[in-house]
């Protein structure tokens, strides 16, 4: 099993979710995160004090996938999350050794 983590623009989240649903991927866990990278932030000024905000809102998707689905999911995300501008985010893949469904204690790919 593979864990896919995608950090994407909040504004693309709805279309990514829709695109994934179309290819039959439903299970995912979503976190609001803030990202730091090449994308420039912005400046805020409160009573003359300037703050450079270089942590920008991003959405992190986490999905544990059976190996055979990984490529398709990656492609789908790439397509639906891309705006072509700096800050579009990353996809990371890593191995997961076990998955267990709490409800019925199913294990492995059946649990996804």
């Amino acid at each position, binding site marked *: 099993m593979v864990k896919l983590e995608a950090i994407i623009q909040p504004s693309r989240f*709805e279309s990514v979710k829709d695109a994934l649903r179309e290819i039959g991927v439903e299970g995912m866990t979503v976190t609001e995160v803030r990202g730091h990278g090449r994308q420039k932030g*912005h*400046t805020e*000024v*409160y009573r003359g004090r300037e703050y450079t905000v270089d942590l920008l809102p991003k959405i992190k998707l986490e999905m544990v996938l059976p190996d055979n689905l990984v490529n398709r999911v990656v492609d789908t995300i790439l397509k639906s999350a891309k705006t072509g501008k700096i800050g579009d985010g990353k996809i990371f893949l890593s191995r997961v050794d076990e998955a267990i469904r709490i409800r019925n204690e199913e294990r492995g790919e059946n649990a996804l």
Partner: protein
Amino acid sequence: MKCAGCRCSVSLMVVLGTILLATVSLGAGSLAAEQTPTANATTSLLSRKVSPTATVLLETPEPAQKVSEKLAQLDQRIAAAQSSADNAWMLVSAALVLMMTGPGLALFYGGLVRQKNTLAIMMQSFALMALITVMWALVGYSLCFGGNGPVIGGFEHAFLRGVGAEPNPDYAGTIPQMTFMVYQLMFAVITPALITGATAERMKFSGTVLFMALWFLVVYAPLAHMVWGKGGLLNASLGGKFPTLDFAGGTVVHISSGVSALVCALYMGKRVGYPKQPMPPHNLVLSFIGACLLWVGWFGFNAGSALAAGSLASSAFVATHFGAAAAAFGWSAAEWIKNGRASALGAISGAVAGLVAITPAAGFVGPMPALVIGAVAGVVCFGMVTKVKAAFGYDDALDAFGVHGAGGTIGALLTGVFAQQIVNPIFGAGKAVGGLDGHWGQVGNQLVGVLIAWAFALAGTIVLLKIVDLLTGIRVPEEHELEGLDITQHGEEAYNLET
């Protein structure tokens, strides 16, 4: 921690103790008898007493000449007392109407937008509190209430010349004109602020400021003068050709802003992602507070429009409250029937719709018709906002048209139906006022007023939008819209909750 508390308590006790010691020598009696004993024990706090200087004049029987002088004096003092009473109410009313814009409307709208646009929409209301006030002082009051032309006032009160402690008997004979002036100002502030509900989440701040300044001059001032100004075309009591009943601003405030809001929404186009992307209100608690403050403030708006603290104010107060309640009821019932649930957003939206609709009627109808007007407005505005908007597909983001345009129009027409001479004999003693009173022609008059207000708002707004679009631009670039107006227009964020 506890130690600090102890030390603080101890020190505080020392302070209070010292005070006690210092005063105990004064024999400050028992707790239950700290009132000064008065000579005559039967005189209580209940009986109002008069300062001696006031009664000293009247000790012996007087010759006729002196009686007459005294009568004249009393007469003046009565007028002064009456003026103070009315002024007390009108100053409170002015404060209440300001509270409707800030924080009332700012919160109502602020809660309905997405988080990234919260400050921007609130700032628009606040900027109008500053901008319109300054313009009002320079020229606005004069344009609205300064002359007696049929369409617009003059410059006689520019820079508030001649506006002082004296009443302006044309408008409010018992209160200082200062009071009347500042009370009317509060209406001029909130009206353009209502429009920002339609343009929310995408209008440039610079464009907003310029547009509103012009709109106030070109749309608001003439309409206010026509309906409320001496000699105005639609004025019902000061010689208008088409006597339109508008107690507190159904046409001047709500139709003008609501219709302009629709034009703005059409001109600007939809928000990026609308209607596909969900854009739920980011904080309904704010909207709830805002709606409640609008309700409370509206008593100043409507009952204050009696311009005195007499029974007409009471009647308008009651009608206002009943209209709001019935409309909240109506909207909620409609929603419950349709969705199986009544929502808080529905209830507060209904209340606002009812307040809008009862505005022109408040000083003309009794409590039962107020319930009817409210209930009708609640149901109709529910339909406008949920059905009509979806059918036509315009993006009136926060339903400024759906509530104020529609509610104002309904209210103006129903005023023609339900107005009663027994409540307000505006056309003279014994003359029927509204339709059910026997004067169905008034519905026609109301229709004329409504049409003129619609036409004025439509035409003025379109022209101004084009001008402002050329000068400063109207809509922010798409990436700014996505990032949010708070950061891109104002350089700040509403919430910085991370530690």
